[in-house]
């Protein structure tokens, strides 16, 4: 992920969006390392920011990071939990919509790299598939940091 960012950061705008935990130590399906690192469900936006800071630091990630609000509005708008990849064309339409979860994440990174490679090489955005002609209705979400 970091390598892809370093390779294509000049030709694409990358954002890591930190959302609610997938397997927090105090969640329904905790993973062992969440218990070891004390990663818990976020009660406040400060909790979420602190955990995001840890993720970036411990994994040497330099991708610009955004923090979803405590209403999980962006997460919900994109049905992004537990993790998910999207690529947005310059016309605002979705070029890549990955399946959510670990089964979708790795294949989506490979697809994204191919897409970006073609974009970088040709200066042309790869065409959308034929069944993608129907544009969805855009929704706008305003950040709320009151939580």
């Amino acid at each position, binding site marked *: 992920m970091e390598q892809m960012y370093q390779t294509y950061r000049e*030709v*694409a*705008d*990358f*954002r*890591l*969006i*930190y*959302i*609610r*935990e*997938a397997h927090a*130590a105090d*969640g329904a399906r*905790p993973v062992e390392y969440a218990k070891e*690192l004390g*990663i818990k*469900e976020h009660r406040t936006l400060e909790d979420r*920011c602190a955990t*995001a*800071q840890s993720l970036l630091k411990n994994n040497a990630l330099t*991708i*610009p990071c*955004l923090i979803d609000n405590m209403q999980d509005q*962006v997460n919900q708008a*994109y*049905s*992004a*939990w*537990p*993790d*998910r*990849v*999207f*690529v*947005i064309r*310059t016309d*605002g*339409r*979705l070029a890549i*919509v990955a399946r*959510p*979860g670990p089964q979708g994440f790795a294949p989506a990174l490979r697809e994204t790299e191919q*897409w*970006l490679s073609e974009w970088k090489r040709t200066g042309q*955005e790869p065409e*959308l*598939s034929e*069944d*993608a*002609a*129907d*544009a*969805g*209705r*855009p929704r*706008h*979400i305003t*950040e709320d*940091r009151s939580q």
Partner: protein
Amino acid sequence: MKIYRGVMVFGLCALAMHATALGQPGRSGAPLRSEGTLKVGHAAPTFVLRGLEDDAVFDLRESVGVKPVVLLFGSYS
């Protein structure tokens, strides 16, 4: 006969509770995984969020049109 009825009632209650649980969020309120309705070619839902490092506001509407945008959603766990 009473025992048979009791078993039947208990079984139906257990089945109903299980079916209800399947339709609910996780124990901690965690959302169930869903692909949602977004498809390739749909307009990306716009949003405004604050950055972690520099506290600057990111407005997707301002970024679209300049370069493609790659959104990577996730968490530590």
